[in-house]
């Protein structure tokens, strides 16, 4: 029944529209949901696409992916997920083609250059039930996403010891789970930086307090003052850059610096979907940061001064890798210097630029 078909397509389109719009207006809480919705939408895209060859499938994915990415450049999770799925398709294709699953590393390497063995470059050969296998693989990915937070929280006790003073900033779903998990077994104290002008920190503090964890709210200016008494900093992040740096909530840089100054270890809880193949080369890099309305910094009523002064309200901050001690990801703890390796595991180099 074609009518049903077309309706399906419309519905999908509409979903994509809405998602794109929500992205644009930042009305989605937390990059987990972003990633999740991206994957599930792209899953539908693939499911509905009639094309048989891997090439076409990949193209359609890229097309929709680009559209979503354009909606909100700074939401890296979208791009990451698109790349993940492309990788999946490539692998499934390769394995289907060669009969054996192509072992891990798609990166170029001297070794390969010497042995003159090339990558599969053409994906146009039709493969029978490619779609099915791909969809399965994507389901696995979805499951991975769902469990990521728990996996990370699971490692809590490895990192938090008895009555520590832990400092965290903003409201990261992962960190919240992490701390609460730890609190089941151990007693410790948490300092929460409120993170004006969004005040997610206060929200976190509330929920921790409800979970009966001894919590103190401090404002952003007190970080350095308090840091000398903190013995672990645990923060979430929005993105892990390719060089192991962080794109995290505003103010993280100051926190990281303070931690460095008092040589307090800085742990970053980040699920793997936050890993981006992009590098940061300058603070003013395009599409790195996100600038929202200055109304949070200064009310519009006060525009009389505002009109004569530049008022910016950046959302993110860059933390260079040397300030990070450890990443706690859903696949275990890693040093920042290892991130590049993870990259080559999750993404295909050809997909870095979509």
């Amino acid at each position, binding site marked *: 029944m074609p009518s049903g078909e077309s309706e399906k397509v419309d519905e999908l389109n509409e979903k994509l529209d809405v998602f794109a719009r929500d992205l644009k207006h930042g009305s989605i809480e937390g990059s987990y949901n972003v990633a999740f919705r991206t994957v599930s939408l792209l899953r539908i895209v693939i499911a509905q696409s009639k094309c048989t060859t891997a090439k076409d499938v990949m193209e359609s994915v890229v097309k929709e992916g680009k559209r979503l990415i354009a909606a909100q450049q700074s939401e890296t999770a979208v791009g990451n997920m698109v790349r993940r799925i492309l990788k999946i398709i490539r692998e499934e294709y390769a394995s289907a083609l060669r009969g054996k699953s192509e072992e891990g590393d798609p990166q170029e390497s001297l070794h390969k250059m*010497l042995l*003159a063995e090339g990558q599969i470059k053409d994906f146009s050969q039709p493969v029978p039930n490619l779609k099915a296998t791909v969809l399965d693989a994507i389901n696995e990915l979805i499951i991975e996403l769902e469990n990521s937070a728990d996996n990370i929280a699971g490692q809590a006790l490895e990192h938090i010891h008895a009555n520590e003073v832990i400092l965290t900033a903003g409201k990261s779903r992962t960190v919240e789970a992490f701390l609460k998990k730890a609190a089941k077994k151990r007693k410790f104290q948490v300092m929460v930086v409120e993170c004006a002008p969004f005040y997610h920190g206060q929200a976190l503090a509330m929920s921790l307090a409800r979970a009966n964890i001894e919590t103190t709210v401090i404002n952003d200016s007190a970080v350095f003052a308090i840091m000398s008494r903190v013995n672990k900093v645990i923060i979430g992040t929005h993105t892990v850059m390719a060089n192991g740096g962080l794109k995290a909530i505003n103010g993280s840089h100051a926190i990281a610096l303070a931690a460095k100054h008092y040589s307090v270890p800085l742990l970053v809880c980040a699920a793997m979907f936050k890993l981006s193949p992009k590098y940061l080369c*300058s603070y003013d890099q395009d599409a790195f940061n996100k600038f929202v309305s200055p109304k949070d910094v200064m009310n519009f009523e006060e525009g009389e001064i505002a009109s004569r002064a530049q008022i910016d309200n950046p959302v993110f901050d860059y933390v260079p890798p040397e300030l990070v001690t450890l990443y706690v990801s859903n696949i275990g703890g890693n040093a920042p210097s290892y991130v590049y390796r993870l990259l080559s595991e999750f993404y295909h180099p050809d997909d870095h630029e979509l």
Partner: protein
Amino acid sequence: MDRDGILSYFNSLVKEDPSLSVAVAAIKTLLHFLENNKIETLAELRDRLKEAIQILTETDSSTTSISSAGELFLRFITLTSLEHPDIQDCQRILVERGNVFLNKIKNSRQKIGKQAQQFIRDGTTILTHSKSRVVLQVLKEAQQSNKRFHVYVTESLPNKSGLETYNELQDMEIPATLILDAAVGYVMEKVDMVLVGAEGVVESGGIINKIGTYTLGLTAKAMNKPFYVVAESFKFARLYPLNQQDLPNQFKYHAKVLKSSPDLMKEHPLVDYTPPSYITLLFTDLGVLTPSAVSDELIKLYC
């Protein structure tokens, strides 16, 4: 094919294409050598090549590159020979793969140029050292994508190679300033990033490069400026220096110097070693790598 044959071939290569990097030239020579020599056993082949490499290292051109290239070539042979025990067709395959390899690395410079672009923004100020063809390539591309940036070039004694760079930049109409080697500390606060080439990239992820690079690294670190290295992957050398002392002498001094002068205290070393901790990123034809990724590469290759 004897010593002179090798040398003459090598020198002719270098002469006819100055933009050709020494390492490539070396590999070409070795391939050439391989083709025109009749060899019975694998062992013999190895020994002969070793000699050849030895000979090449005694030329005045950068020992580091040559020896790294040599290493690579030997490795290349062992890898192939594993697959093809029979020496004859092994040799054949070696030759053709060799050429494939050469083709691959020919456009590695362009690759690097592309990758580096995202790191050069409009209005950047760049400090570079001595002369590196790759660096020039990068800057050229940046210029072509009409970015506006300024370059400081160290004059880089003793051979004033910085001056050449400066002139080339002038020809490309890239605004540049020539500075004293001693002025590095002075300009560093004006600079947004340091961009240098490398003669060799060692297993630690550090680099061996024209003397003075280490100083750049130190100052850049002190002022929290990014320190980027551009290097083709065939410059990866299987070597793990601990510090400057630990660098083998034939890297640090010309062969003839080593022969002639008894005490090296009075000689200027040509290169120094910059440890990985001072390097932010390396742009290679294998992609943008962190220092630790380099050792990974080498491990994959040699172990």
